[in-house]
C-alpha cells in the first residue's frame, strides 16, 4: 500500500509546472510566423544572392579572360570617304538618339600615325570583306600591323643590292614560316647572349670594382681611429676587468656548501663577474690603442693592379661576344618583309623613324592570317599566344607580350611572406597560449592582435616604406647612421650593462617561481614584475646595441658610396615583410585556436612521461596543431597574395627587366623590386598608354591571378590534408 502511494512522485519534478500551466492556458494553433517560413526564404534568398554574385564574378573573369587570345577575322572596310582599312571588330554599339550605330575596329599600324583603335559609323562603311591574304603581324615594337603581304627580300650591305626571296602573297606565305622560325631562333639566341653572357660579364666587373671600393673605404676608415679606445677608456676597462677577477677570486666559495642560505647570491655574483670579465676582455683586445688595421695601402695598390688586369680580360671577352651578337643581328636584319596596308599602300617599316626601311623578319613575333584559318590552326594560335603570355617579358608598356616576370614576382612574394609570417605567428601564438599567464594582459594583447587585422592595408605600406626600406634597409646597406652610431667605449660599456641586465632578468625570473606546492609570495610577485621590467629594459638595450654598433658598416657600403641603395630602397624582401606583418594576426589567431584544440589529456600524458613543457610542446602540441597552423598559413597566403595597396609603396613596379630570382649568385635577389599581378592589373587598366589594347589583357591577367592564388591555396590544402591523414592514421 505504501508502495503504491510512493509510485506517483517517480516522474521528475520538472514537468509539473507545465501541467499546471496547461490548465489555465489554452494552447493556440501554430501561426505561420511561428513556423519561421519567411525566415527560411529570406536566408535562402540571401545565400542564393551571394552564390549568384560569386558565380557571376568567376564566369565574367573566365569568359573575358579566356577569349582574349582567340584569333578573330580581319575585315577589309571601304569607307564612304574613300579610305580602305584592315581591322578586327572588337565592339559594337547600337544607335542611340544622339549617335549612330557604330563599331570599334582595331586597326593597328600605329607607326604610320594611325590610332590603333577607331570607331567607325556603320553607315560610313560602303563595303566589308574578309580577304584571304590579310594578315596581322604581332611585332616586337609599335603594336600590331594589318596589311597584305607582298614580298620577302634579302638586303645586301647597305640596301644596295636587293634579292627577292618571295614575290607575291602566295610565295610569301609558302616561305614565311620557315624563314620566320629561323629568324626568331636567332633572335632568342641573341637575347640570351645579351642578357646572360654579357650580363654576367657586367656583373663580374661590377663586383671587382666594388671589392676595390670596399677596401679603399676600409683603409680610409681605419685611419680615423674610430675603433681604438682612448687610453683613458681602455684603462677604465682594464680596471673593470681587474675588479671582475678580484670578485671571482674573493667570492669563489660563497654559498657553495650544501644548503647555504646565500647559494643564489654566490652563483649570481660569480656569473656576473665571469660574463663582465669576458665582455671586457674582448673589448680590451679589440679596442687596444695599438690595434692595427688589417688592410694597408700596399694591399690596395695590389688590388687596383689586379682589377685593371681583370677588367681588361673581361672587356676583351665582352667585345668578342658583342661582335658575335652584332654579326647575327646584321645577318638577320637582311631579311625583310613587305606587308602593305591598303589605305596608303605603305609597307610596315622597321620603326617610325626608319619609315623607308621594310620591317625585319626578326621583328615579327607572330603572323596571324585568321581569314583562312581552320579551327585547329586557330586553337594552335590561341595556345601559342597563351604560352607567350605566360613565358615572356611584357612589351609595349605592358600592353603586349607576356607576364612572366609578374608571375615570378607574385609567387616569390607570396612564398616569402608565408615563410616569414608562419614561424613568427606560430611562435607568438605559442607564447600567448602556452606560456603567458592568462589574464587581462593576454586578453588585451589578443584584442590588439585582432585589431591589427583591421588596420587599412595602405597603413602597412607606409610603415613598411618608412621602417623597413628607409630605416632597416639603410642600416643593412651602410650600418648605423652618424646620429645613432655610438662611440666605441660607450658601446662596450653598454654591452657590459646589458649583459648584467640579462643575467639579472634570468635570475629574478628563476627566483620569482614559488616553491613547489606553495602559492606565490609577495616577494615572488615583486620579483616577477621586476624581471619583466628588466627584460623590457634589456631588450631596449640590445636593440640600441645593434642599432648603434660602431663595428657594423653595412653589407653594401661600396655600392651605397656610389649612391645606389641595395636594401635601402623598395624591394621584394621589404614587401614580403610588410605583408607578413599584415597577415600576422591571421596566423596568430588560427594557431592559437589550433593549439587550444589539442586535448589537455595529451599534454598531461606527456608531462606524466616526464616531458618538460618545451618537449611537450614540440612533440605533442605543435604536431597536433599543425593542420590548424597550416590553415592559418593558407589564410595568410590568400590574404597576402591579394594585397596591392601596400605593395605600391614598398616594391611593386610597372616594369622590371631583372627578375628577383635568377642564375646569378645569390640567386634570390630580395633587394630587387618586382612586378606583381595585382599591381599589373591596375597598371594595365588605368596606367596604360593604349587602354583599348590593354583591356582584354586586364581580364586575362585577372584570370591568371585568380588561378595562381587558387593554385597556391590548393597546394597548401593538399599539404594540410597529407599532414592530417598522417596524424590521424587510418582508423582500422
Amino acid at each position, binding site marked *: 500500500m505504501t508502495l503504491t502511494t510512493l509510485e506517483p512522485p517517480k516522474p521528475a519534478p520538472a514537468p509539473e509546472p507545465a501541467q499546471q500551466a496547461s490548465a489555465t492556458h489554452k494552447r493556440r494553433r501554430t501561426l505561420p510566423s511561428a513556423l519561421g517560413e519567411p525566415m527560411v526564404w529570406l536566408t535562402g534568398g540571401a545565400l542564393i544572392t551571394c552564390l549568384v554574385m560569386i558565380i557571376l564574378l568567376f564566369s565574367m573573369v573566365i569568359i573575358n579572360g579566356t577569349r582574349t587570345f582567340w584569333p578573330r577575322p580581319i575585315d577589309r572596310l571601304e569607307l564612304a570617304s574613300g579610305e580602305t582599312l584592315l581591322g578586327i571588330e572588337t565592339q559594337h554599339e547600337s544607335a542611340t538618339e544622339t549617335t549612330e550605330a557604330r563599331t570599334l575596329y582595331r586597326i593597328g599600324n600605329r607607326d604610320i600615325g594611325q590610332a590603333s583603335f577607331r570607331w567607325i559609323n556603320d553607315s560610313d562603311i560602303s563595303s566589308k570583306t574578309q580577304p584571304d591574304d590579310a594578315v596581322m603581324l604581332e611585332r616586337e615594337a609599335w603594336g600590331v600591323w594589318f596589311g597584305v603581304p607582298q614580298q620577302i627580300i634579302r638586303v645586301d650591305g647597305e640596301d644596295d643590292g636587293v634579292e627577292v626571296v618571295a614575290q607575291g602573297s602566295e610565295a610569301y606565305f609558302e616561305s614565311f614560316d620557315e624563314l620566320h622560325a629561323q629568324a626568331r631562333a636567332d633572335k632568342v639566341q641573341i637575347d640570351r647572349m645579351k642578357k646572360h653572357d654579357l650580363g654576367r660579364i657586367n656583373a663580374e666587373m661590377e663586383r671587382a670594382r666594388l671589392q676595390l671600393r670596399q677596401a679603399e673605404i676600409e683603409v680610409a676608415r681605419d685611419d680615423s681611429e674610430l675603433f681604438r679606445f682612448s687610453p683613458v677608456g681602455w684603462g677604465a676597462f682594464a680596471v673593470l676587468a681587474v675588479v671582475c677577477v678580484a670578485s671571482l677570486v674573493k667570492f669563489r666559495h660563497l654559498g657553495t656548501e650544501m644548503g647555504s642560505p646565500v647559494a643564489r647570491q654566490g652563483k649570481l655574483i660569480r656569473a656576473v663577474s665571469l660574463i663582465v670579465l669576458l665582455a671586457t676582455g674582448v673589448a680590451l683586445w679589440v679596442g687596444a690603442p695599438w690595434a692595427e688595421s688589417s688592410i694597408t695601402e700596399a694591399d690596395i695598390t695590389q688590388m687596383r693592379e689586379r682589377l685593371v688586369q681583370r677588367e681588361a680580360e673581361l672587356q676583351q671577352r665582352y667585345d668578342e661576344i658583342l661582335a658575335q651578337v652584332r654579326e647575327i643581328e646584321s645577318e638577320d636584319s637582311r631579311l625583310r618583309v613587305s606587308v602593305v596596308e591598303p589605305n596608303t599602300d605603305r609597307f610596315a617599316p622597321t620603326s617610325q623613324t626608319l619609315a623607308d626601311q621594310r620591317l625585319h623578319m626578326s621583328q615579327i613575333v607572330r603572323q596571324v592570317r585568321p581569314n583562312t584559318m581552320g579551327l585547329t590552326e586557330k586553337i594552335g594560335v590561341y595556345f601559342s599566344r597563351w604560352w607567350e603570355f605566360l613565358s615572356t617579358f611584357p612589351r609595349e608598356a605592358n600592353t603586349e607580350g607576356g607576364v612572366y616576370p609578374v608571375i615570378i614576382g607574385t609567387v616569390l612574394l607570396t612564398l616569402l611572406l608565408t615563410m616569414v609570417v608562419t614561424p613568427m605567428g606560430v611562435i607568438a601564438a605559442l607564447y600567448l597560449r602556452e606560456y603567458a599567464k592568462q589574464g587581462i594582459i593576454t586578453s588585451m594583447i589578443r584584442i590588439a592582435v585582432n585589431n591589427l587585422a583591421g588596420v587599412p592595408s595602405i597603413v602597412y605600406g607606409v610603415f613598411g616604406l618608412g621602417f623597413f626600406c628607409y630605416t632597416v634597409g639603410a642600416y643593412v646597406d651602410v650600418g648605423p647612421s652618424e646620429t645613432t652610431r655610438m662611440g666605441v667605449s660607450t658601446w662596450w660599456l653598454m654591452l657590459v650593462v646589458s649583459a648584467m641586465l640579462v643575467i639579472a632578468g634570468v635570475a629574478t625570473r628563476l627566483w620569482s617561481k614559488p616553491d*613547489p606546492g*606553495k602559492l606565490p609570495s609577495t616577494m615572488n610577485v615583486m620579483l616577477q614584475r621586476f624581471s619583466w621590467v628588466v627584460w623590457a629594459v634589456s631588450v631596449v638595450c640590445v636593440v640600441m646595441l645593434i642599432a648603434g654598433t660602431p663595428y657594423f658598416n653595412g653589407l653594401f657600403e661600396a655600392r651605397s658610396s656610389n649612391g645606389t641603395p641595395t636594401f635601402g630602397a623598395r624591394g621584394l624582401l621589404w614587401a614580403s615583410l610588410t605583408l607578413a606583418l599584415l597577415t600576422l594576426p591571421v596566423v596568430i589567431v588560427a594557431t592559437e585556436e589550433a593549439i587550444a584544440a589539442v*586535448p589537455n589529456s595529451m599534454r598531461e*600524458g*606527456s608531462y606524466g612521461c*616526464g616531458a618538460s613543457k618545451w618537449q611537450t610542446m614540440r*612533440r605533442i602540441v605543435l604536431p597536433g596543431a599543425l593542420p590548424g597552423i597550416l590553415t592559418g598559413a593558407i589564410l595568410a597566403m590568400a590574404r597576402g597574395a591579394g594585397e596591392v595597396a601596400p605593395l605600391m609603396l614598398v616594391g611593386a613596379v610597372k616594369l622590371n627587366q631583372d627578375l628577383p630570382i635568377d642564375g646569378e649568385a645569390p640567386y634570390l635577389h630580395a633587394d630587387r623590386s618586382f612586378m606583381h599581378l595585382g599591381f599589373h592589373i591596375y597598371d594595365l587598366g588605368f596606367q596604360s598608354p593604349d587602354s583599348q589594347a590593354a583591356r582584354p589583357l586586364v581580364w586575362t591577367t585577372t584570370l591568371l591571378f585568380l588561378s595562381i592564388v587558387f593554385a597556391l591555396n590548393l597546394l597548401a590544402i593538399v599539404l594540410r590534408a597529407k599532414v592530417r591523414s598522417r596524424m590521424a592514421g587510418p*582508423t582500422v
Partner: protein
Amino acid sequence: MTTMDTSPKNNGSEASGKARAVAYEPKGEAAVADYRVIDAIRRGEIPAPTLHGAVEAPDAVIDIQKFNLWYNQDAKALHDVAMKVPRGAVTALIGPSGCGKSTLLRSINRMNDLIDGVRVEGEITLNRSPIYAPSVDVIELRKRLGMVFQKPNPFPMSIFENVVYPLRIDGERRKSVLEEACEKSLRAAAIWDEVKDRLKSSALGLSGGQQQRLCIARAIVADPEVLLLDEPCSALDPVATLKIEELINEISERYTVLIVTHNMQQAARVSDYTAFMYLGRLVEYGPTAAIFQKPKLIETEHYVSGRFG
C-alpha cells in the same frame, strides 16, 4: 516502516540540494546504522584514519605525511592524509566521487602543479626522498613515476613512437635500444602479439582497451619506481577491463602500483591493499582482504558492499 516510507523522498530532495560528494543514501538497515566517522567528517572534523596492522609500518615506497591540499584559497581537497604505500604491491584507493583519491594520486607526481592556485602542506616522500622540497626538479620526479590516465591518451603518432616516448624525451636515439625497450614493454603490457606487425601505424587506430594497454606500456618503458593508475578502466568495456586487470596482476610482480578505482570489485580483484577515502580524509586503510571481508568500520563495510556512497 515509517523510516522506509520517508527515506526515498528525503533522499530525492537531499541529493539535488547538496553536493554530490555529500550525498549518501542510507538503504535498508543502513539507515539506522551508526556512521560515527562519516558523520564526524561531514561535520568538518578530521578523525584519525583506522589503520590495519599490516599497513602501519611496511616497507614504504611512498610515504604520505599529513598531506593537505587546497585547490583555491578555501577549497581544501585533502585533509591530513597520511599513509604508507607498501613496496611491490598493488594499493587501491577507493571512495565516492570527489573524495580526493585522484587528487592524492596526482599529488604524487605533482601533476597538480599544472593547476593554478594549488597549495599543499605536508610532505610526500618517494623512496625516502621528499618530492615537495624546493630543490626537486619536477620533471626528474615524473621520470621516476609512470602514470596512466582515466581516458586512454595515446599520442597521435605511431605505436612504436608512443611506447618509446619517455626514452625519446631523454634523448635516446639508438635504434636498437629503443626497439628492445619497445618490445619488452609491449610484451609486459600484454599487447605485443596484437601490434607487433603494425608498430609503424598510428596508435589512434587501436581500440580503447588496446590504447589503454599501450599507455601502460608507455608508462612502464622507462622502469618507473611506482606506477600510478588513475581509474584506468573507467572508459573501457568489461572485456577490455578484464584484460587490464589481468595485466595489473602481472605487472605488480615487478612494479609497485597505486590505483584509483571506482569499481569495488576491481579493487578486490587486483589490489593487495585498499584505502577508503571520504571527503578528502583517509577513513580506513588495510589489506584488501580485511577491508572487504572484515573491515573495522561499519561505513567501510557498507561502502564496499554498495550500500552507501
